[in-house]
């Protein structure tokens, strides 16, 4: 057994877990944060993407113990003060989701993608290439790509306004 302690969505949590507990199991079963999903066993689908210390991570590929001491953000922690994150808002506006199962991982990956590219507007080819690690079976990606492009523009505008 291992004692793990981390900050999840701004709250410090400490639990004793089996050594083999995956971060996604810790989040879903240990903390009841069921917005992070498991869609495969091989780290391909990306439904489980969360942010660990600001970077997108497939939480099915990391032990909870490895994340001890980290700052973790899940889909539940993305909106602030009841206001949707621009990526969340863009997914809704552009119909970037249908069944919703891949959506949390898609959104967390998109937030990371936009940040890694410097917060500027992203083009379609970049977005499609960057989505390599996230599978959606419903939308054909068409509206996901539109949503991420729109969110990247919104966020670039916000960044410019802040400067």
């Amino acid at each position, binding site marked *: 057994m291992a004692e793990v302690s981390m900050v999840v969505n701004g709250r410090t949590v400490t639990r004793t877990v089996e050594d083999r507990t995956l971060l996604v199991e810790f989040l879903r079963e240990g903390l009841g944060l069921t917005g992070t999903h498991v869609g495969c066993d091989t780290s391909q689908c990306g439904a489980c993407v969360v942010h660990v210390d600001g970077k997108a991570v497939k939480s099915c590929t990391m032990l909870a113990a490895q994340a001890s001491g980290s700052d973790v953000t899940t889909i539940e922690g993305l909106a602030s003060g009841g206001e949707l994150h621009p990526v969340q808002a863009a*997914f809704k506006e552009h119909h970037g989701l249908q069944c919703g199962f891949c959506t949390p991982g898609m959104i967390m990956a998109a937030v990371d993608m936009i940040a890694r590219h410097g917060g500027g507007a992203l083009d379609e080819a970049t977005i499609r290439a960057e989505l390599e690690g996230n599978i959606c079976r419903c939308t054909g990606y068409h509206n996901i790509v539109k949503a991420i492009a729109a969110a990247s523009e919104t966020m670039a505008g916000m960044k410019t306004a802040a400067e």
Partner: protein
Amino acid sequence: MAGSVEGIGARVQRREDKRFITGKGRYTDDMAVAGMAHAVFVRSPHAHARVVSINAEAARAMPGVIAVLSGQELVADGVGNLICGWMIHSKDGSPMKMGAWRALESEHVRHVGQAVAVVIAETRAQARDAADAVEVEYEPLPAVVDALDALKEGAPQLHEEAPGNLIYDWEIGDAAATEAAFASAAHVTRMEIRNNRLVPNPMEPRAALARYDEADEHYTLWTTSQNPHVARLVLSAFYNIAPEHKLRVIAPDVGGGFGSKIYIYPEEMVCLWASKKTGVPVKWTCERTEAFLTDAHGRDHYSEAEMALDGENRITGLRVKTVANLGAYMSLFSSSVPTYLYATLLSGQYAIPAIHCNVKTVYTNTVPVDAYRGAGRPEATYLLERMMETAAREVGMDPAEFRRKNFIRSFPHQTPVIMCYDAGDYDASLEAALSAIDYAGFAGRKAEAARRGKLRGIGLSCYIEACGIAPSQAVGSLGAGVGLWESAEVRVNPVGTIEVLTGSHSHGQGHETTFAQLVAERFGVGLDTVAIVHGDTDKVQFGMGTYGSRSGAVGMSAIVKALDKVEAKAKRIAAHLLEASEGDIALEGGTFKVAGTDKELPFFQVALAAYTAHNLPAGMEPGLKEGAFYDPTNFTFPAGTYVCEVEVDPETGKVEIVDFVAADDFGTIINPMIVEGQVHGGLTQGIGQALLENASYDADGQLLSASYMDYTMPRADDVPSYRLMTTVTACPGNPLGMKGCGEAGAIGSPPAVMNAITDAIGTNALEMPATPQAVWAALKAARPAQAAE
């Protein structure tokens, strides 16, 4: 109020989205109940074997293990075998040959992944550890995976009930008339066509949580179902789990289905049975590889097709022989897919005077095959549209012109294979698509691509499909074990808010939005005053669920009928209160008005009056709640044209889809945004079939593509942005004129892609999936000198 901001035709953003984008969706695996234990199944590693012994002693002694259960106990407890709900008779009149399928098989396993036992333990990890410790001794038997091989003399036999592995040998159409067409044909086109086996892969794996309440002798099942009432009916009537009133089935948020969540699988019923047997709630969540090994697969047809043309290139006959692989067992609706959902669509958009089709279905040592997005119609469309393109090439006619020459143009049109098309305008969708892609300019684009060293090709697909399945009497006469109507109940609350209880089930389709738009359109009330309730057998009246693109055409038609009744009663109340004649009352913008006066009553006041019942018309019952059942009068017939342009790199065989235009006729559209999303998804699944996806078995029956590392799911950079458009002919068969849009993309796109690739590479010898290796090999075979360079 047509054209209103929230009514029919409005691009309303989805009401269900907020919970999904904030991580507050409630899927089955998100559910937890006190004392819950976890199930993990012990599965056969062999495709075909006798089970010699099962030794669970060591497993039972492991930490946290509550029980290890096997098939003997299941049979002893009287749990029934799994069923196939659609009876098909062979052409000699004999009924289909169905082998027994037990939820846990302790004697004779017939595919890799078949469950032989189940471990129930306190945690999932403990159950997994113990499942590994269950010792099963097998005596392997020879296996057969290919349907043609299974029909051969001396092939391994799967079921005593089905000699020669033949389930049925069925036919449709007029063999003599078709033979006559071929005898007088000026040209005959012949092809062998394979439709590759696919795995549906909704992103949410199947899951079940079963709880037994001993005091009430009552079960609750949360499960990933497209049709919870049908699940309850089957679990109750055929598997003997419990009478219907003692079994509540809840399908909460469900993460996609595409057909694979219609069926009642072994695992869900084992959870119910085990929850009573162990006295603890039992949860099972499928792992992805388990899903590959147990979710019903799709397609897997081999066909020989012949098309007869007269001297003017008019089609005079079509003859098809198909062998369909149904896997190791007959899944719930498997028998209907390669028959009434397939061969009845072989006329396509064309006036073909004579058609004959023979279908043999076969057992093999593979995962059972059943309906997957399109279900039979993609197989028919692929066959016919590959034939159309090939025939046009053979007679030297432009493929678009060849199709125009043979289009059906008068309606209703009775085909030689049961279907009677009610309405359509195939020229309209063809011309819209050709114009959008600039068909005339293709030669220039091809020349330009050639200068870059790329082979550019263009391919058409003019599909038709049958949705809104279907008139209950008609499907009953064809062997269906159920009626295929839908139900609705509209409850107006005393304060005027409205709840619509529907037998349809939403697992991505956005019913909570579109169904509410219908109410907004009819009553002029805001969407925020309407709730759509579905997916719980305790809340909603019996309904048939969602599959076959039926929730609009059938499900919403039931809601229309219930709304009609509510409106009629409300108008009587309004007329009474306003002291006007009932015929003078109109409902506009959420208000009942008396024609030619300024007298009016808002909707909520009429609702309140219905419940206070202080002043109702003489003899009227209080309340404002009405139910309806809608049974369609015919199938609906969505149709359209897809045009695909590809560029092939001759060095690598890699195919890039450079343009894709879809022109669909879905009849009336409630929410264009949601309809476009359905098409995007369908197109991507169809392109996945054409380019990427294949359930690949080795000769021993091992599924080689049983994970996302091996089975190529379409990624974002595999597909283009699509260009969509619609043409509209209203469906005359239902009150809203809707046809259905959920499957069209997956039905129409594979032949468009393959026609484009074969146009580009100049050879027709190519099968799906057109992987770079397959395309390169086809190129090399066709042009050995160039490929060698």
